[in-house]
């Protein structure tokens, strides 16, 4: 997957990855994909929940040795 932007949230705990994602997504254009890098396991549940609440598209998560890459697509303003 080729993201348009990457957001580094390594070492950050809840709620910061979600707060930063919401902030970053505001600056992006519809159709663009954001990659969020995180180490907090909570992101696995939080990101789909955030997408459901805001109407953005959750594309999935890649997990490797305690590091998570989460992909979110902006589908609306």
């Amino acid at each position: 997957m080729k993201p348009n932007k990457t957001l580094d949230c390594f070492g950050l705990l809840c709620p910061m990855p979600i707060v930063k994602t919401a902030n970053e997504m505001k600056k992006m254009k519809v159709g663009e994909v954001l990659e969020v890098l995180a180490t907090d396991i909570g992101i696995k549940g939080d990101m789909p929940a955030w997408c459901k609440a805001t109407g953005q598209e959750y594309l999935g998560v890649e997990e490797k040795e305690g590091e998570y890459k989460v992909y979110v697509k902006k589908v609306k303003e």
Partner: protein
Amino acid sequence: MEKEKFNIVVFSGDMDKVLAAFILATTAASMNMEVRMFFTFWGLNVLRKKKFTSGKNLLQKLMNFMNKGGAGRLPLSRFNMLGMGPMMMKAMMKQSKVPSIEEFVKMSVDMGIKLVACTTTFSFMGFKEEDFIDGIDSYTGAATFLGEVREGRVSYFI
């Protein structure tokens, strides 16, 4: 689309409880909810400036000397141990990159979270507006807050 409303009464002035309130508030705001935090009783300490004391009469001044204001000097609900607990907790929060309460207050204002101060506590403690930080949305009573609560599905009391 009208935003869903999330209302929190922050009654406690304990650092740990206030932290929980801010985590929920900032998350809710990130999830496009309209968030309102109603600070009352000890909770008002979060919005107070760091001062030696405040109040209009002697009793109020004495009480506000003991009841220290300022988001940076809230006690812990457990293991306060004359300030040792909060010091350790702050250091641990820093280690884990958790924002401090002061940072959460600023973040909340930037995110458009409405910080509301209770006028009853404000008056009987003898506070003045100059005792409080900038960024407070309004000073209101319970009925105004409950008016908002009625329109929302989720309300918490912390």
